C-alpha cells in the first residue's frame, strides 16, 4: 500500500510542480520581487557529513553577518555527487574529496573556476570512553579479538571510508579485520555506530570527534598521515544554482580567515599549513 501511495504522490508532484512554477512566475510579472527587497535570500548547501558540527558554526556566523538563510543537507560526498549530476537543487557543494567538485566543473555542472580547496581532513581511531580498546597500539589495536565490530564509512562512495580502508591496508591489518568491518552510509553514521556502542571502535573523521558533544563520549588516537592519501576537501558553486550570487557570497565567506579558524578548531588542516 505505502509504496504505491508514495509513487502516486511523487508522480503527482512531478507533474504538478513544473507546471505550477512557470505560472507563479508569470503571475509575479518577471523576476521574483522578493529578490529586490532581500538581496540575499536562501541557499541550500550540500555538505559532506564530516562537516556535521563545523558547518553549524560556519552557517550561524554567516547568517548573522549577512542576513542570508542557509539550509544544510548532510550526507556522503559520493551521494551528493550523484544527486547533483541528476539535477539536485543545491547551490553549494562541500565535498570531502576535491575530485568531485572538479568533476562537476569538468562536466559543466559547477560554475567554472569556482572550486575551492578549503581544508585537509584527517581520520582517527575512535572508541567510547568506557570501552577497553587499547587505542595506544594504533591500528594494531584492531587485531585484538575482543574488538568485534569496527565501523568505517562505505569506501565505495564515502571519501573517509576510502581513507580508512587505505590506512588498514597500508598498515597490514586489513586482512585480519576485514570480516569485522561494518560500513556506515557516511562518516557520521560510522561515528554514530561507535557512539551508540554497537561497534567497538571506528575509523572516523577527526572533525566529528573534536565536537563538544562527541568529545565527552569517547577518546581518539591519531592515525599516521603517511598511511593514507591526504583528504583534500573542496567546495564548489553549482552552476544551476537559483541564487548563485548568495552561493558565491557563502563560498567567499568560507575563504575568510575567521571561517578558516572555525574549520581549524574542528581539526581540519588548512591548505598550505599542514606538514608536507
Amino acid at each position, binding site marked *: *500500500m*505505502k509504496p504505491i501511495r508514495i509513487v502516486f504522490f511523487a508522480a503527482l508532484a512531478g507533474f504538478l510542480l513544473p507546471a505550477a512554477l512557470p505560472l507563479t512566475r508569470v503571475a509575479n510579472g518577471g523576476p521574483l520581487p522578493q529578490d529586490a527587497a532581500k538581496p540575499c535570500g536562501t541557499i541550500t548547501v550540500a555538505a559532506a557529513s564530516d562537516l556535521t558540527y563545523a558547518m553549524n558554526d560556519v552557517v550561524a556566523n554567516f547568517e548573522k553577518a549577512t542576513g542570508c538563510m542557509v539550509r544544510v543537507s548532510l550526507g556522503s560526498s559520493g551521494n551528493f*555527487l550523484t544527486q547533483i549530476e541528476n539535477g539536485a537543487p543545491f547551490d553549494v557543494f562541500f565535498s570531502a574529496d576535491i575530485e568531485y567538485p572538479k568533476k562537476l566543473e569538468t562536466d559543466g555542472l559547477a560554475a567554472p573556476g569556482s572550486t575551492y580547496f578549503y581544508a585537509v581532513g584527517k581520520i582517527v581511531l575512535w572508541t567510547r570512553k568506557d570501552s577497553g580498546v587499547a587505542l595506544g597500539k594504533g591500528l594494531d589495536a584492531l587485531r585484538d579479538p575482543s574488538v568485534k565490530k569496527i565501523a568505517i564509512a562505505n569506501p565505495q562512495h564515502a571519501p573517509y571510508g576510502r581513507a580508512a580502508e587505505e590506512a588498514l591496508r597500508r598498515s597490514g591489518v586489513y586482512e585480519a579485520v576485514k570480516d569485522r568491518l561494518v560500513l*556506515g552510509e557516511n562518516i557520521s553514521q560510522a561515528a554514530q555506530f561507535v557512539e551508540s*556502542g*554497537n561497534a567497538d571502535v571506528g575509523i572516523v573523521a577527526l572533525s566529528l570527534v573534536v565536537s563538544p558533544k562527541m568529545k565527552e563520549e569517547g577518546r581518539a588516537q591519531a592515525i599516521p598521515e603517511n598511511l593514507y592519501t591526504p583528504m583534500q576537501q573542496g567546495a564548489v558553486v553549482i552552476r544551476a544554482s537559483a541564487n548563485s550570487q548568495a552561493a558565491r557570497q557563502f563560498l567567499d565567506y568560507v575563504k575568510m580567515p575567521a571561517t578558516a579558524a572555525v574549520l581549524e578548531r574542528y581539526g581540519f588542516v588548512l591548505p598550505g599549513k599542514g606538514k608536507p
Partner: protein
Amino acid sequence: MNWEAIALSLELAVAVAGILLVVGLPIAYWVTFSHWRWKFLVEAVVALPLVLPPTVLGYYILAGLGPRHFAGRIWQSWFGHTLPFTFGGLLVASVLYSLPFAVQPISAGLESVDRRLIEASWTLGASPLVTFFRVILPLSAAGAVTGLVLSFAHTIGEFGVVLMVGGNIPGVTRTVSIDIYDQVQAANYDVANRTALVLLLFSFLVLAVIYGTNRRALALWRRF
C-alpha cells in the same frame, strides 16, 4: 551484478515470510475471534509499522537494544552479541516491520469464514485445534497465502531499517536494496540498472505466479 546480495535478500524474505506465517496465524486468530474489550489496542500495536517510518524501528534497535541499554545488555548476555550488524538483527527487524502485512490479510481471511461451519464442527465434537486446521484454515487459505506473499514482498523491498542497523556487511546484511543504493551512490549506473531490472522482473514474476495460482486454487476449491 551482485548475486550474493540477491541471495541474501531471498533468504531473509523466505525466513521472514515463514516466521510470520507461524507467528501471524495465532495472532490473527486471536484478533479475529476474541471478544476482549481492549482488543483494539492489540490491533493498533500490530498495525503500527504501517504508520511508523522505518527510522523509528531502526532507532530503537540501535539505541534501545544497543549495549548501552538495559534491554540490549540482556539480549547480549543471552545471544552473545547485540542485534545490529547481524542477520538475526535484520530478521527481528523485518519480522516486526512486516507484521501487519501478514496479520491483516490472514485475519481478513479468517473473518470471511462462515461462523455456522465453525460451530457445526464444534457440535460434531471436533476440538478448536482440529476445527482450526480442518475447517477454518482450508476455508481461509487465500488470506494466509496473501499474508505470506505480502510479507515476503515487503521484506525484499525493505530499505530504511537495513540501512540504519545493517552495517552493510557483504553476505550478512548487504541486501539487494542496499546494494542497488551503493551502486547508485558510486555512480555505477550499469550495475545498478542490471540488479534493479532483475529485481523488478523477479518480483513481478513471483507476484504474478502466486496471484495466478491462488485464483486457480480458489476456483478449484469452489468446484468441490
